[in-house]
């Protein structure tokens, strides 16, 4: 392991995610198992139990979203510590195979976690928590992803070592139509970071709105709050897509005008 403040934070967040996911999964499973046969009093107790679960899941998911951001910062900070690494491609080679899988998983987690978070936000605003069972089930579906993501973080940062790695130009040669994605986004044209994140968030927000609409059809109690949320989310999606489009113009001009690494 390469001990730095950031790798330590990532390992701690990973271990926290692992333990909390196991605890929350068991609690969630208990709610699903008991709710169908629960009487009025037990249902009240389950509701209380669900609010505890909801708070724990919020903490887990928010910590994982923070970890998703810190992940890229940590990898960027490891570049000078790994001989031969010029970009995050080199860092990933030093932490293979966990690093590569972790990279792929990290691209989708915000989308997946956002589904639960947006639905729970609506559930909290409606009396009686009509989505309690649905959210417990969705969490159980998310649990393997959460567990995998946290495990990959721990495995990656514990196994990464300062071994000599070949640079990304061995793969992304002049004949390759794609540039090295890490060099491209983090070094050559950072404006594309704004483009990619903005477009990614816009797509996520639209899909979360679709999920809310789907559940608003199923549970009429949440229709009003759901519509209000959809209005806000789609407006935000439009805002991010406009921001991404504004950013893509200087980003393209920069790439087309670049002749080499020399500033």
């Amino acid at each position, binding site marked *: 392991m390469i001990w730095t403040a950031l790798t330590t934070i990532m390992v701690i967040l990973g271990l926290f995610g692992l333990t909390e996911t196991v605890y929350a999964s068991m609690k969630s499973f208990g709610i699903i198992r008991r709710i169908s046969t629960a009487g009025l009093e037990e249902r009240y107790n389950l509701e209380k139990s669900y609010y505890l679960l909801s708070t724990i899941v919020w903490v887990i998911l928010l910590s994982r979203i923070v970890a998703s951001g810190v992940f890229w910062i940590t990898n960027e900070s490891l570049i000078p510590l790994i001989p*031969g690494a010029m970009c995050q491609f080199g860092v990933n080679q030093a932490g293979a195979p966990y690093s590569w899988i972790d990279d792929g998983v990290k691209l989708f987690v915000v989308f997946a976690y956002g589904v639960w978070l947006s639905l729970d936000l609506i559930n909290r605003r409606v009396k009686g928590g009509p989505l309690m069972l649905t959210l417990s089930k969705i969490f159980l579906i998310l649990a393997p992803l959460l567990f995998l993501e946290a495990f990959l973080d721990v495995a990656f940062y514990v196994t990464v070592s300062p071994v000599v790695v070949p*640079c990304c130009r061995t793969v992304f040669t002049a004949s390759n139509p794609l540039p090295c994605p890490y060099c491209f986004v983090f070094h050559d044209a950072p404006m594309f970071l704004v483009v990619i994140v903005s477009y990614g968030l816009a797509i996520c927000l639209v899909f979360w709105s679709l999920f809310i609409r789907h559940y608003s059809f199923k549970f009429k109690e949440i229709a009003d709050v759901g519509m209000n949320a959809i209005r806000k989310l*789609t407006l935000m999606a439009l805002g991010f897509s406009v921001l991404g489009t504004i950013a893509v113009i200087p980003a393209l001009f920069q790439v087309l005008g670049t002749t080499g690494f020399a500033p």
Partner: protein
Amino acid sequence: MKYLVPAVFIIVAAVILGASGYLYYQYYGSPRCEACGMIITPEMQASIIMTDVDTGQRIWTCCPGCMLRSVAAHPNVHIEIYDDWYGTQVPPAVIEIRNSSVVSVDPETSHILLGAKIIKGCANNRFAINETSVQLLLENGYNPSNPIAIFKNPLPNGTPVLAVSAALPGLLQTGIQYVPPSNMFLGAMIGIGIIVLILSFVAWKKLIKPIPVKTTEGPIK
């Protein structure tokens, strides 16, 4: 709660714009190897001092391999490079290159250990001013007591040892390896952008339509 959406949007936008700005600062604020793009460390700055004699500008380079690759863009250069084993204990070797050809190397016994030929990567290249240094670097990879040692790793087996004039033609051919993205890639980015913009607009227009309420009453006769 009224200002939640604009507040979230502004915070997220500020974070991503800030991250992008920081990366720009890093890109333009710290020197990078002109040939491969690696960030120049203080050890690299101290080890290789390469100057374009036509412009008088310092050329940033990370290793002896990239040093000669940079000649593709700067045909007339004056180089002062420290031995990777002895470091600052001995004076630097001086290399003069004119019209992309080696004019002089002092001392003449200087060699480049081009480990990148075996395992690609600048970390496998070294510079030695004599045979003793060559052997020590081949055996140990680096000298732990050299304060300006750039790379601290062993060299791959079979690392070729070349005179500067012999190494130059091949590295010159490799040149500066910046690979600009293809037009297809840039076109795809624009295409994705248009799709996302349309998707968001349609979602904003269509999804906010009220959800129809099912009625249990039969049709009106």
